[in-house]
């Protein structure tokens, strides 16, 4: 009987595949194909990844021009510098938003996403609607998320079709000169790292 992990599914099972993956796990463990520590490590690895990592990379790039240059030229090296050592062999390319250019990331073929940095992608990113429409009508998609691309600017879409994962380096919001790096990171939303929106504006709580 499998007592490993604490994730039984006693209530509200939503999919017949829930039992199926558990049976696969049990069989793989019994046959020694995988060990419990290996499965647990894999769980922990994903749990440690979140948009907060992306926010840290962005905030550091906003305050440190050398780090920004590294982030834009060698994303994995920049991530490693902040202790995020991505295990996945895929390249990480960070694309920069400017007043003239707004970037949007999609994977039309599956849902490639910089999981090694940001963790799991949101449901909408994996949706058929996003995967279908982001390449053909990026401006309409971005508007659906509540952001209006700047007048006269370009919208650039990156379809992650191969061994590269993409992340956006959004523009630093205005009126943030007095914020600490930590405070800056709090403005960076997951959606701004994919490009469907931009970072939060700073709240007016008497800085400077």
């Amino acid at each position, binding site marked *: 009987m499998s007592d490993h*992990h604490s*994730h*039984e*599914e*006693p209530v509200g*099972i*939503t*999919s017949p*595949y*829930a*039992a*199926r*993956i*558990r*049976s*696969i*796990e*049990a*069989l*793989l463990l019994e*046959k020694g*194909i*995988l060990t419990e520590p*290996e*499965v*647990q*490590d*894999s*769980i922990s*690895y*994903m*749990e440690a990844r979140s948009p907060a990592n992306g926010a840290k990379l962005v905030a550091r790039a906003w305050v440190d021009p050398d780090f920004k240059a590294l982030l834009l030229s060698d994303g994995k090296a920049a991530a490693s510098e902040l202790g995020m050592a991505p*295990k996945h062999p895929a390249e990480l390319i960070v694309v920069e938003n400017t007043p003239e250019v707004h970037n949007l990331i*999609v994977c*039309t*073929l*599956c*849902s490639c996403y910089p999981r090694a940095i940001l963790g*799991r992608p*949101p*449901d*909408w990113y*994996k*949706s*058929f*609607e*996003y*995967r*279908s*429409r982001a*390449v*053909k009508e990026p401006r309409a*998609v971005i508007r*659906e*998320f509540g952001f209006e691309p700047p007048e006269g600017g370009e919208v650039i879409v990156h*379809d992650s079709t191969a061994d590269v994962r993409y992340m956006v380096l959004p523009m630093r919001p205005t009126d943030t000169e007095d914020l600490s790096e930590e405070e800056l990171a709090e403005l960076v939303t997951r959606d701004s790292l994919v490009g469907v929106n931009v970072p939060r504006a700073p709240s007016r709580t008497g800085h400077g």
Partner: protein
Amino acid sequence: MGRVHDMGGSPGGPIDKGQHEVEDWERLADAINGALGAKGLQSTDELRRAIESLENYRDLSYYERWVAATEKLLVEKGVLSSDEIDERTAEIERRWDGP
């Protein structure tokens, strides 16, 4: 090989921005694939190919596709058999359904 997955530019409706709570079995699907990948037993490319080949691709959720594809690959490689997966799945479901 179906091309259903190759959907860039296809018509699509409004994007549902809701986020479901990731369930434990979905975390496990992620973890099993991660662990198999880390040991060189399965590649991302194999997983993608197996997902793309699912006949009911459009009817399955994201992680359901992962589980179905993982099973396909493990059976293909002779690591597990569909029968033993069926059997163990039925046992687990009986246990969950209670006495």
